């Protein structure tokens, strides 16, 4: 029997796998990008406590936070095309499948980021808003110039943790057939009967990137400390 692991196969796998990391990066990009915008909108909507909307938003956030990412991915990947077709967007069924993967991660991020921003805004002391009003700022000016910059600062550690969680979460996408770096490693393993090297490289890549992201966020955290 051949050895379970060989360095030779490991190095041979690297160029075959690395290009597929781009798929992972794309999922993170769309997940964070869309999630950030919708998350802030959602946080602001929830802070205003709109009577008719609040229960719906509450249920949405609770479902997204209370169910596995994998299940959400499966529901959105298989369900969203059908829902879109039902409301008249017939061609949705023929769209690039990746759109629905991006949508799944973005909708998940929306819920998580909205909670992070909501609690961050609530954590800014009320006196900051009052002082802004007292020097004559309007509500919008006060939020834009005083409250949100401080909230952003408070949200940063949570945002960093969430970013890394999303990055890790993308590794689930191969379970719906996405050929990202994980999917490629699996396919490579199936064709060569040597999967370990590929998976170990994926693990290593995730470790390095995660550590890098952590260091980066810690640096930002210190940089933006407003003198503290």
């Amino acid at each position, binding site marked *: 029997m051949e050895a*379970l692991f060989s360095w030779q196969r490991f190095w041979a796998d690297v160029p075959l796998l690395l290009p597929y990391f781009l798929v992972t990066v794309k999922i993170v990009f769309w997940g964070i990008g869309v999630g950030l915008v919708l998350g802030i909108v959602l946080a602001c909507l929830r802070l205003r406590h709109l009577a008719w909307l609040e229960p719906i938003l509450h249920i949405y956030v609770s479902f997204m936070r*209370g169910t*596995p990412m994998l299940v959400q991915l499966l529901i959105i990947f298989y369900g969203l095309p*059908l829902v879109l077709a039902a409301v008249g967007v017939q061609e949705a069924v023929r769209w690039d499948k990746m759109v629905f993967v991006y949508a799944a991660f973005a909708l998940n991020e929306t819920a998580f980021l909205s909670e992070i921003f909501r609690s961050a805004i609530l954590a800014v002391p009320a006196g900051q808003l009052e002082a802004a009003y007292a020097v004559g700022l309007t509500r919008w000016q006060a939020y834009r110039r005083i409250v949100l910059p401080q909230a952003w600062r408070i949200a940063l550690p949570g945002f960093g943790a969430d970013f890394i969680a999303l990055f*890790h979460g993308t590794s689930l996408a191969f379970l719906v057939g996405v050929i990202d770096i994980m999917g490629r490693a699996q396919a490579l393993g199936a064709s060569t009967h040597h999967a*370990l090297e590929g998976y170990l490289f994926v693990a290593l890549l995730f470790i390095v990137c995660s550590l890098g992201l*952590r260091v980066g966020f810690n640096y930002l955290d210190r940089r933006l400390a407003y003198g503290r």
Partner: protein
Amino acid sequence: MAFHLDYFLASLVSGLAYLPRTLLLVSLPLALGLLGGLVLAAFRVYRVPVLGRLTALGVSIYQGVPIVVALVIYNLLFMSLFNDVAAFFGVATTVAEVDIIWVGIFALALQEVTLMEESFRGAFYSVPAGQREAALACGLTELQALRRIIVPQLVPVAVPMLMNHVVGNIKNSSVVIAIGVAEVLTGASIPAARTYSFLESYVAAGLIYWALATAAEQLIGQWEIRPEARQSSWFWQVCARVRRRRTVTVAQQEKRGQVHAELEAYQKIL
């Protein structure tokens, strides 16, 4: 699009039949994580030579590995090595005879250990150093200070933390389908293999996980209810009834009173 209610219900029933498996995948890693996390956190908090450093390094590296990646690696190693290892130890079991759920439990437990380690450490540092110093100044030993002053103050921090871990683990448990472990998600998908009603199956599975997570949140949330509000909580009434059934000896009562008096004295000093 048609959402078939009967397929959905069939999936719900089929998924619920696998609930015990999911509960096993949640509870066992949680218990192991609690234990392992506490030990590792102690290594770091008390700066145990070598072990403390190794823990710090190991935890931060291991946290970089997504659970599903770890899972497929463990599964691969398990599949390729189990027979040889079993033969080496003279065990007459083959890989086909072992329930693969143990691989899932192993992977989830290891992940939980690293997460718990971080939480425990955070909770420990949330108690100001002055509390320990004050306890020592009152003449308590290091162990007494831990048991009577620090740990009681850890509880309010640790409870919401525990809740996060329970909910997190419920959600994490579904990834074991990547290596073919049967649990709620798999169970809910069984009817879909015949009817192709995958959406109904996944929604059913989602609802089960959601209910489980919400129930866990509610249950643990009860611990956070302030003493004066406990009268109106069903959970605490049940607890009180259970407690009343236990007989309390006079000696125990005396000891309890003494501890109370001591604690009050400390509170005044602190």
